């Protein structure tokens, strides 16, 4: 028995190491550039660690204004802790995501084992977690959701253990960890209470809790989440954030609602339209093309893209569903798994983007567990076949997995930077480093962040990029940062980040203008004044010109 446990431990460790390898390999180079989310969180974390305030001078904020997208605070605070140990390297922002992503692998093993009581399924689930495109992608891109999922699976694992072992510590542990998970990401703040409620409802008999046992736990949980609730309900910034991402911001829905204006029952029909639209969006999250085809959106061609899950796992996911349906004495667990998936995609269905996988990661983690059950069922049935046939079938499946995984690696490491460099603000780093190198030569540096390969887009977080890559002290940023009077203008130090209007700006003296071809009159631009050209990742398309006046 001891030997078996040792083997299982070794296997989990091996799988974790495999996952750790794919999460950390070339992490300093891929993604090829810090995204605007990463740079803002890193610089705010540095600001918090050094001054206790964000760059706008808010003391220990509950929500970070950042670039007016009001980010949830968890990841920034964790990064502030990492910063104290590792300093302000680019890698610092990626460390928490990596750590949570790697820890999730054994956590999924323990959780699945507790849920299904099957070591085989648990091992396969942790293996799938280790190699899933979405798990690897989000672990490498400094994303807070990973911490939330880790806490979620841990919390529910503790509660399942409470059912089995009846120790109060499991019960309290579960509720406390789940309360902490709610702070990691806004979608978790919505989903976890609902999931907890369904857990209690589904396992009510097995939980066998008297009101005297339950009330103190709920009280502790409620006390823990009350600051979060307070902020969600009363903090205007948090409310603004919720409003900004709510499905009502969708243009198509807005058009449908406009058709109702001035009609009888407009208000009731408006709600009906909203429900119809949200319901459709919610169900769209289960689109197989999205799950297996283009969910990660790493290229500019939907058809040749990467899904959240490996395509090879599709038949095993279906087998997993069959396995779970047929499994005896598993009714509660079945319902819980179904609730997890259905509630997990809820936030994505209520927001304005057609697909927002980062809000639904928890559902995909559970889909991996279901897939693991399918793989397990397949393996069991395979044992009925002759050894040779079994070998051939297993080899074919292994080959399919390898090809599918290689495909993901190729897209991630090779094509993704080419296809989407603009979306991670490439080459804002190069622009920032160059701007700082020229700072002493000029009186002012004007940066217009409008850029784009196919169409113009306003790049956000330009002041964060400039400040971070110039090692600009956050304390100075808090004092210096101010809005200007020109369109889109913000200022600090010698930098003015704003719209460039060449008709007026061409007459400026001793100024460095950095702007894209979208913002400059390319026909009349004096070519001799272009000091440097910045390209997108493909080194062909021009992103910005630096012009010395």
């Amino acid at each position, binding site marked *: 028995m001891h030997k078996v446990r040792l083997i299982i431990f070794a296997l989990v460790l091996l799988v974790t190491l495999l996952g750790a390898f794919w999460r950390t390999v070339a992490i300093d180079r891929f993604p090829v550039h810090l995204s605007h989310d990463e740079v803002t969180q890193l610089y705010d974390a540095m600001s918090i660690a050094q001054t206790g305030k964000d760059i706008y001078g808010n003391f220990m904020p509950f929500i970070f204004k950042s670039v007016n997208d009001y980010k949830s605070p968890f990841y920034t605070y964790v990064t502030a802790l990492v910063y104290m140990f590792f300093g302000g390297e680019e890698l610092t922002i990626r460390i928490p995501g990596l750590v949570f992503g790697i820890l999730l692998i054994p956590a999924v093993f323990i959780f699945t084992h507790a849920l299904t009581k099957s070591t085989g399924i648990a091992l396969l689930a942790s293996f799938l977690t280790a190699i899933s495109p979405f798990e690897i992608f989000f672990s490498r891109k400094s994303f807070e959701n990973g911490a939330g999922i880790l806490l979620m699976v841990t919390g529910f694992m503790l509660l399942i253990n409470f059912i089995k072992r009846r120790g109060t510590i499991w019960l309290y542990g579960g509720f406390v960890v789940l309360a902490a998970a709610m702070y990691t990401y806004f979608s978790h703040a919505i989903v976890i209470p609902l999931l907890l409620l369904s857990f209690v409802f589904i396992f009510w008999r097995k939980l066998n809790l008297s009101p005297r046992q339950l009330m103190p736990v709920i009280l502790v949980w409620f006390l823990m989440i009350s600051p979060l609730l307070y902020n969600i309900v009363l903090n205007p910034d948090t409310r603004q954030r919720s409003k900004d991402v709510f499905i009502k911001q969708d243009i198509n829905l807005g058009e449908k609602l406009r058709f109702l204006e001035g009609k009888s029952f407009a208000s009731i029909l408006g709600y009906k339209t909203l429900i119809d639209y949200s*319901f459709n969006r919610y169900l769209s999250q289960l689109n*197989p093309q999205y799950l297996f085809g283009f969910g990660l959106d790493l290229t500019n061609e939907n*058809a040749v893209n990467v899904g959240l899950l490996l395509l090879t796992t599709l038949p095993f996911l279906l087998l997993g569903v069959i396995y779970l349906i047929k499994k005896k004495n598993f009714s509660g667990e079945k319902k819980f798994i179904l609730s997890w998936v259905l509630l997990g995609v809820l936030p994505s269905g209520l927001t304005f983007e057609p697909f927002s996988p980062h809000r639904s990661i928890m559902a995909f983690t559970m889909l991996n567990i279901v897939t693991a059950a399918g793989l397990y069922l397949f393996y069991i049935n395979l044992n009925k076949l002759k050894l040779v046939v079994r070998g051939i079938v297993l080899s074919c499946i292994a080959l399919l997995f390898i090809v599918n995984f290689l495909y993901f690696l190729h897209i991630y490491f090779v094509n993704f930077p080419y296809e989407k460099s603009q979306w991670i603000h490439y080459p804002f780093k190069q622009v920032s480093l160059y701007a700082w190198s020229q700072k002493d030569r000029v009186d002012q540096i004007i940066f217009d962040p409008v850029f784009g390969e196919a169409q113009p887009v306003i790049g956000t977080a330009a002041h964060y990029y400039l400040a971070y890559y110039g090692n600009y002290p956050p304390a100075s940023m808090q004092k210096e940062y101010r809005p200007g009077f020109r369109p889109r203008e913000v200022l600090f130090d010698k930098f003015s980040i704003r719209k460039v209007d060449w008709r007026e700006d061409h007459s400026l003296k001793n100024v460095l203008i950095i702007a894209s071809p979208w913002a400059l009159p390319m026909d009349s631009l004096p070519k001799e004044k272009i000091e440097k050209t910045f390209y997108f990742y493909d080194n062909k398309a021009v992103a910005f010109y630096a012009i010395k006046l």
Partner: protein
Amino acid sequence: MKVYLWTAVLFALFLRIISFDFPFFTADEARITSRAFTLSSEGVDELGRRTPLIFNSLNDYQLPVVSYLISLEVLLFGKSQLAVRILFTLIGLGISLLTYLVAQRFVANKGAWYLSAFLIAFSPVIIFLSRVPNEAIVLTLLLLALFYCLTRDRLSWIAVFTISIAILLTSKSAWLTLTPFTTLTLLFFRDDLSKRRILFLSLPSLLLSLFTAGLFLQIPQSTRSFMENNFNLFSEPGVFNAINRFRGQGLESGWPPLLARALFNKLAFLPIGMLHWLANLQPAVLFGQFDSTGRWGLMSMGVWSKAAIIPFVAGLFSILKLGDKKILMIFPLILILTYPAAFVYPKLSPPLIVPALPFLAIIIAIGLMTMKRLFQILVVFLIMLELAVNLTFIEQDIKNADKIRPSWISAVVSDIITSSHSQSILVSDDIVEDILPFVLLETNLFIAPKFDQKIGKVIVEYPYKYRQIKFGSISLIGFDNKFTTCGREQQFKTFLSLRDFDRIEEGLNKQVLQQYYDRLGQSRVMVVEKGLCIK
């Protein structure tokens, strides 16, 4: 129990009759209807061809069954849009009744038979398609009839043969599905026949399919028609470009070229097509939004009301749990009936999944039967309520689909026809998708265009995506036409779209006599009485 069935049928009939003029016809539906009128009265189609087997539409060729079916009905009941709608209403009801019979082959529970029929009767998609001429609903009826014939105790080969031919002459997608559908049905529902005999009996359907497709391939533009409408996945430029681009990026990055070739190649069409096929059957299509254009269904509903998703999931669970071989066969049947959707990329193909709807209804019915009585009643009530609300408040759907179902065009067409009796008419060709079918629909006049007196034949023999630009005294203005002043004898009344109105140069008559507005309140047609000619 039969009382329930007839009550459901009557209620379904009622649902099909309320707001009977909704939805307004699209240009193609108007073309099919007007063609049926000319076929029944003159024996020729809208292009003057005598009893052809291949017809014209804006996007593709059309097969003959639907057009001749309507013309037959017009012969019996007269020339009106109402008569056409009634025919399709009856087809919709026929599908309900056949679903009741087909359900008996899958489940022994009588309740599930009635519920299957009920669910089809109350499917917004079937109701919608029961009001407009379309091949999807005819094909569904025929496939159900074929299934019923194939699974009856006494196998009537004459019936099977006749229905199979009708199926093949209804829709091109049937050329792909008929043989596997027939074979699978025989394999799993005819225990009295040996496998060899079943394969032998399936052979005629294969031969018939090949023969029909082969005949079609004799038409000059048939390959183009296939590639543009049925297999456009394989000519999707985005996929080819992406494959080449990604290989190039791999080379630039120093990755092994062989690996890039192994990972990015034409095999990519396999997963792309497969996922696209499954996407056509995703829950959002079934219970969220069947069609986002308003061409194939209500835009705020899926195939069924939202509440039906609960029994659907319960039905899936129940079928998988029971593991009964015959009920399980419902899944391959659904997949076989819908697989042509895999090749129509990148948009979803709502009409291609319509033939599978009766089988999906059976799954929901099985799910409903597993629910407690109270929940059952609640779900059924919610299904009916949502449908009733959507059919009552159809204004939003009318507005959303205004571009392809231009309900405001009748007034314009009426003005054009009235004016055409006394003078020549010019009409912008972008007012709607195609305006002449609407004109043809409203007038008793028939003028065969492009008729070559010398050879005694129409010039356009196989009209692929053919757009008629002249109809008697009515001519269309294209984007390549320019406006000029007119001579004394040439005086046109002109119906202009915004595009053409803006193109009228200074100095020419721009005085608008009248304007026509669409349902969104936007000006769509401007009438200029005289002084404009085109060259």
